[in-house]
Each structure stands twice: as structure tokens, then as C-alpha cells.
């Protein structure tokens, strides 16, 4: 940076003037951003809602034509039951999150009535682009399709029935599998008494939600 002497028409070095200059700028900046946020916020929410609905349809069993929210879950953590055209229950759509390499990976899992994974999507994540971020792509997701809770182990190298981790992103791969495993376990417990006892962690909105 050069330290050129600026010619300044109202150059006054009084501290009030300097402070005022910065304050006015900061205020103006805040106001501009507030206005922009005001107009983009509804679009952002609508788009998020749309993505959520799309994700729901993508992961649910194919026969599902509508989704009903299961009672007792917190609004931002609602589990859905998939229902087919003739009213039969065909599976579940479950939101979940798991601690990944960087922050939480938010996912949506779809299972059929046998608790076999239909598909899952990653809704939000902070994983490394080109590495951990590959977890949301089809080749990795395909490895989970049809698996049940007892077949969700991840290994860095091909090993028996285990899911092979994404090269360079073992932590992300494990995090995804762990999240799905724990959710399937919870599902089994909750289904046993037909969702009568939903654990407090799922029933209330979580603190420090990100």
C-alpha cells in the first residue's frame, strides 16, 4: 500500500469528524444490506422450501404419492410418513444431521417399510469441494441403496460387504454412514410403540441450530 497524501477538501483531523465519517459509512452499509436482505429473504425461503420438497420426493419410495407429518416432532425436524395412492403406508422420509469434516452435514433419508434405504440427499454441508462434497453425488449414494442398519459400516478400502469410502474423504463418508445408522436405530425404537415416545432432542427445536 502506498501512503500517498490525499488532497482532501474538508480535511479536518478532529476525532469527531473521523469517527462520524466511519459511523455514517457503517450506518449506510447496514441500511443497504437490510434492504437487500428484506427483498431476497422470501426468495431464499421459498427456494429452500422447494429444495426440501424436491428432496423429499427424490428419497421416498416410488409408490409414495403424499407425505403426512408424524405428530410430536419439532417443526424444523419433522419426520414424514410416505403414503401411496390407496392410502397404504410405504415408508418414511427423515431429516437428520451428522457431524462431518467441517460442521454438520444435513441430510434427508428415505426408507421403505422394511427400513431399507431408498436413497438419501445432502441438504446442507460444508465439506471440501471436490472431495467430501462428492458424498451427495449419485455414485456414493448408490452404495447405500437397499442397505439396512446392520450393513452400514464404512471402510477406506474394499473389504467384504462394507461401503467403500470416497477417496480422500473417509471422515465425510463415515459421518454420512454414522448419521444414517443412528437414524435407522432411532426409527426402529420409535416405530416399536408407534411414535408415542419421541425423545426430547427430536421433539424440541435444538439450541444453536445451524
Amino acid at each position, binding site marked *: 500500500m502506498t501512503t500517498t497524501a*490525499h488532497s482532501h477538501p474538508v480535511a479536518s483531523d478532529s476525532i469527531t469528524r473521523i469517527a462520524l465519517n*466511519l459511523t455514517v459509512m*457503517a450506518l449506510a452499509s447496514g441500511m443497504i444490506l437490510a434492504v*437487500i436482505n428484506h427483498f431476497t429473504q422470501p426468495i431464499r425461503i421459498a427456494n*429452500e422450501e422447494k429444495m426440501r420438497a424436491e428432496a423429499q420426493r427424490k428419497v421416498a419410495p416410488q409408490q409414495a404419492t403424499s407425505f403426512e407429518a408424524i405428530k410430536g416432532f419439532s417443526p424444523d425436524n419433522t419426520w414424514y410418513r410416505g403414503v401411496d395412492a390407496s392410502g397404504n403406508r410405504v415408508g418414511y422420509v427423515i431429516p437428520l444431521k451428522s457431524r462431518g469434516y467441517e460442521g454438520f452435514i444435513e441430510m434427508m433419508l428415505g426408507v421403505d417399510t422394511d427400513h431399507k434405504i431408498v436413497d438419501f440427499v445432502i441438504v446442507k454441508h460444508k465439506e471440501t469441494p471436490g472431495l467430501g462434497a462428492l458424498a451427495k453425488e449419485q455414485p456414493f449414494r448408490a452404495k447405500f441403496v437397499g442397505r439396512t442398519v446392520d450393513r452400514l459400516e464404512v471402510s477406506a478400502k474394499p473389504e467384504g460387504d462394507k461401503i467403500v469410502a470416497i477417496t480422500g474423504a473417509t471422515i465425510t463418508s463415515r459421518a454420512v454412514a454414522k448419521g444414517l445408522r443412528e437414524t435407522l436405530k432411532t426409527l426402529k425404537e420409535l416405530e416399536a410403540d408407534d411414535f408415542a415416545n419421541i425423545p426430547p432432542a427430536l421433539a424440541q427445536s435444538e439450541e444453536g441450530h445451524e
Partner: protein
Amino acid sequence: MNEAITPDKVAEKIGEENAGFKGSKQTTFAGLVADGILAKNPVFVLALSLCPAVAVTTSVKTSFAMGVAVLFVMSFNNLFTSLLRRVIHPKVRMPTFILLIATMVTTTELFMSAFFPALYQEMGVYLKLVVVFAIILARAEVFASKNSPVASFMDGFGMGLGFLGAMVLAGVVREVLGTGTFWGYPVLGSHYQPILMIVLAPGGFITIGLLIALFRTIGAAKEKARSNASTPSAQVAEAAHA
């Protein structure tokens, strides 16, 4: 262009050349834009903003998005800095410049998260880090605070284009070699065994390093061609970088 160029040296150097615009030897708007793309390319020549260049260029899509975001921020930040240059108190010009940049970046963020949520997700923290790009503050201080709004906009636009070009170039090399795809679509066939290292951080440094070397070589060849323009070697050099 043979000596190592540091930001300080650049500032010093362009401070001396004082024809046409202050802080640039160019005399036309087109010249200012061209300067940003080639002679003063932020990544390849000035070697600024290498952190995001390494971090985000793992795919063409994220590289492109980052480049466009920076292009927008730089052009308009230069414009507003220039418009406000007589209002900003010299003693607080640095904080004010940063404030302006932060406002521009946040605006970009708000728009991106609203209209391109998936892409916004993929860029993660690096979009926020645009606030502390040395190149943007440098252009505000060296150029925009001393020139007319239009010239400043053009300077930012050229520099932004230079950055965008550099990002996309690095992104193409890394995505094609590192994953065998282009913009997410497979291009090298299933036989191709991707060089994973290219998409990892070390591959980023190596790719950028090689691209800088390439740029310098072309620059040197051009310089040589200019100095003996009448000799046949000029045509050879022209052909070499065509």
C-alpha cells in the same frame, strides 16, 4: 516481467508511471481492462489472492462462480470507492474501504444464497473470504481512490475478468485431470484414472505454479518479440503463444 513482483513493488511501480490515469500507464478504458486480464493479471502476474485460487478451483463450476462473484465485487467496489473518494476521510480510508468491500460481498452472498442455493453451499466459506482479498483492497487504494468512477469501474472490471479467467483456467485443468469431468459431465471416458492429487491442496499449488510459469514464459516471449519486432523471431514468438 522477469523480476519477482510483490504487491509492494507493483504499487511502487504503478505509482511512478503517471500518464493518463493515475497509477496506470494506460490511457484508454479498453487498455485498463486489457491490463487487468493480461499484463497485470491478479493471479498469474501479481500473484495475489492465491488462497482462494487454490481452495476453490477444484471444479469448473465453483471456479466460475467465484470468478463472477469477484468480478462483480471488484467492479462495483471500485466504482463506489471512486464515487466516495472525496467524502472518505483519509485517516479512516482503510476501514472504510474494507467496509465497502464487506458490503459488496454480503450483497453478493445474499443474492447467491437466494437464487443459487446449491452453488452457494458449494462455495462455503470462500465466498465470505472475498472480503479480505488483497487484490480488491489494492485496487481501491492504488486506483479507485485517485481516478474517475468510470475509469475505476473499468479497472475493476478488467482485474475481475483477469481473476475470472485465471480461476476458470485452473478449474478446468484441475477438474479435467483430477476427476475426469468438465462442469460435472464426464469427458475423459471411463478408462481414465483421475489424478486425485490434482484436486487436493498440493495439486492446487502445483497447477497454479505451472500456470504462473506458463504466463511468465508467454510474457517473456512477448517482451522479446516487442524488442526485436523486425526480426523473424518475433513471428516465432507470436506463433508460440497463439
